[in-house]
């Protein structure tokens, strides 16, 4: 059943680049990453593309296919018609290194700024007791494969370089929610979520949830509950008064 697909791939580096046209063989059952690999092996041996597991588990091969943030390994060729031109470009939110490979260090920097898991003092290894129903909330967020597609699509930073400093992005706001909902974590990250990591920038358009290849309900289950917790902490007048009187806000 093979046919030749029309591909338009962004080639270039940090300074400049352009979309180049290719015609590549396609076989039954293949995904976009297979086609890019065939392109490497036959026409463009130096085409830069990140990938690892080719099974949607590692989150390395993130890019934009016809403008939509997707994993190259999980996008089947059968979702396109045979005469459709398939345009593959690097993620727009991050600086390009070469071709489809971006500098995603922004994410690793943000990861380091979030206070880590803090267990109760004196709780010994082996003595952790948690109910399944309680761990499930954070487990959903821990399905994250760190493909950074949610970060890529989020309009707060997608075309606003200036917001990157003060906005951790959906992935890391979700990490805060994950720790806040961890049944045994004792730290309080609510103020920090709002003041340091820009939770307030999120206006719940759910773009992040839409592109998540793991189907995590980032907005509904992580960001909105986090906003509610922050609102309770920062804006509830009784809590506010209590904090003023007893200075418990530190």
């Amino acid at each position, binding site marked *: 059943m093979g046919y030749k697909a029309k591909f338009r791939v962004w080639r270039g*580096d940090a300074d400049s680049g352009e979309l180049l046209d290719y015609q590549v063989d396609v*076989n*039954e*059952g*293949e*995904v976009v990453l*297979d086609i890019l690999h065939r392109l*490497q*092996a036959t026409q463009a*041996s*130096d*085409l*830069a*593309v*990140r*990938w*690892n*597991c*080719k*099974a*949607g*588990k*590692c*989150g*390395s091969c993130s890019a934009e296919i016809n403008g939509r943030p997707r994993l190259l390994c*999980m996008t*089947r060729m059968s979702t396109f018609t045979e005469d459709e031109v398939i345009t593959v470009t690097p993620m727009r939110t991050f600086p390009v*290194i*070469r*071709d489809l*490979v971006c500098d*995603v260090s922004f994410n*690793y920097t943000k*990861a*380091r700024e979030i*206070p*880590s*898991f803090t*267990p109760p003092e004196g*709780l010994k*290894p*082996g003595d*952790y*007791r*948690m*109910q*399944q129903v309680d*761990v499930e909330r*954070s*487990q959903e967020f*821990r*399905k*994250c*494969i*760190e493909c950074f597609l949610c970060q890529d699509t989020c309009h707060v930073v997608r075309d606003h370089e200036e917001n990157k400093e003060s906005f951790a992005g959906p992935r890391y706001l979700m990490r805060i929610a994950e*720790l806040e909902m*961890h049944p045994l*974590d004792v730290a309080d990250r609510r103020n920090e979520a709002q003041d340091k990591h820009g939770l307030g920038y999120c206006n719940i358009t759910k773009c992040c949830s839409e592109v998540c290849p793991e*189907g995590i309900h980032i907005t509904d289950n992580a960001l909105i509950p986090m906003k509610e917790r922050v609102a309770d902490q920062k804006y509830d007048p009784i809590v506010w008064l209590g904090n003023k009187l007893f200075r418990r806000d530190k």
Partner: protein
Amino acid sequence: MTEVERHSYDVVVIGAGGAGLRAVIEARERGFSVAVVCKSLFGKAHTVMAEGGCAASMGNANERDNWQVHFRDTMRGGKFLNNWRMAELHAQEAPDRVWELETYGALFDRTPDGRISQRNFGGHTYPRLAHVGDRTGLELIRTMQQKIVSLQQEDFAEHGDYEAKIKVFAECTITELTLDDGRISGAFGYWRESGRFVLFEAPAVVLATGGIGKSFKVTSNSWEYTGDGHALALRAGAQLINMEFVQFHPTGMVWPPSVKGILVTEGVRGDGGVLKNTDNKRFMFSYVPDVFKGQYAESEDEADRWYKDQEANRRTPDLLPRDEVARAINTEVKEGRGSPHGGVFLDIASRLPAEEIKKRLPSMYHQFKELADVDITAEPMEVGPTCHYVMGGIEVDPDTASASVPGLFAAGECSGGMHGSNRLGGNSLSDLLVFGRRAGLGAASYVDSLASRPVVSQADVDAAAKMALAPFDPPGDGAEENPYTLHSDLQQSMNELVGIIRKAGEIEQALEKLADIKSRIHNVVVEGHRQFNPGWHLAVDLRNMLLVSECVARAALMRTESRGGHTRDDYPQMDSQWRNTLLVCAAADDDPVAPAVSVTRKEQTPMREDLVELFELTELEKYYTDGELASHPGRTD
């Protein structure tokens, strides 16, 4: 003189999968500075692919479980060829390593009383695998990645620099280890992004580079699995053992072609899935080998009852060790009872309600839906064997994880001995934790004991740089070779000639092919420049794949028996004369591209008596020679 970026650390860990990360944590907690170097982005290592779980005899699901039972299962799985001391340490320490992960923030699935839930798996007597649905490897990687972040935060608080003690060098490939007077002095490599060279000056190197699956055509392994650690160790003068033992996981996807080999977790069978042939027959009942007779259910009814009541029933033969199941599938397909795309059926749809399947095996559901358009809650999967794991690896001291070269340590898949001739599912993640920690500790103690630091010589750096750049500037005395073509030739040969079923003539053919590839590899040419150039990256990795492939083939030819992950069609029986013999691979010359490989026999140290006594004499008789058992208390009484 070569232009090179220099860094100095106490310990350099190569590989950022489970073993590497656990080594980093340990070395840093002992106060040493650590560089962790990985070919991919941080957190993408192959450990994320591990699905089923992490074996540890915590006894949460069945309180009769303990380290001795786990030890016995591990030795049986490896057909008693395992390094027994490693198997002992592994079984003893695995529970502590799992509980430790909870203190780093891991969230395993729970039992009703709030402890870590444990699931059944092939070869394990009791439900033993700590798990998170079917994405346990991801949980391990992420947990340790986040632990490293928390250590970096502590270092930031103390030194004002996140990277004061631990620095991650991501997308960086190590191409050579350097030696000073026979001791490790450092590691040389290049940044994948820029192609620029980098030198780590360090007295201790921990290899945690994983496996060799990319030498085979059908594999569950990612591109990173090119045997780098194996090859680096050989070229530095260390030895590899057990290289003939390669695990073919019985259940890989077989269709569509582009995903052929991708893993289908053993958890499917642990949770009730059964293997069927095209006649709808549960064929595994016909494949219980003599050594396991009596330990597995003999009827479908008993097997089905076992899922509910494990005390009164024996387990289903669908959960025999992986080598047995892979061979059975191979036979069914060969004899014409396979599925339409050349595998067999794995049926969970008729065994569990759809909702339960989605809950217990979410990523399998997702994987088949997205990649094969198969709804596993409604129809059976098609599966077949895929190259999954190499039991062989760097020979190490069990307690310190040190190789024979001073300053060199190894842990995880790239080390050898722990799993003998066949690894049990779930024993890999626990292996990473136990021996990753021990390697970090071993490296820390070694650095602590040094009176003087070794020095990297400029000549070594120049030679390594020249070697790495060779593909841009081939000698020009032969036809130019494309690295992708050579790689695919190599994979084809290994898959067809040294694959799941082997025979002397075919292995000899494979060795000829490898010699041919070796003669062509000098002429590999890559286009373009050094910046993020995948053709060049492959050319560099190719010589490692060639070297380890030769080790696999030579050892496979020499071992004239069938055992675990080594099946000889011309020697189909397990031979107890071979049980205690290790085949040791070493570099036999100084060829910088790919040295010649020598293979020699070596006897293992006999198992300590108190461990021998954990087994019934009748079981040992199936594996040991009469001579070996002459002094057994059961015989002398």
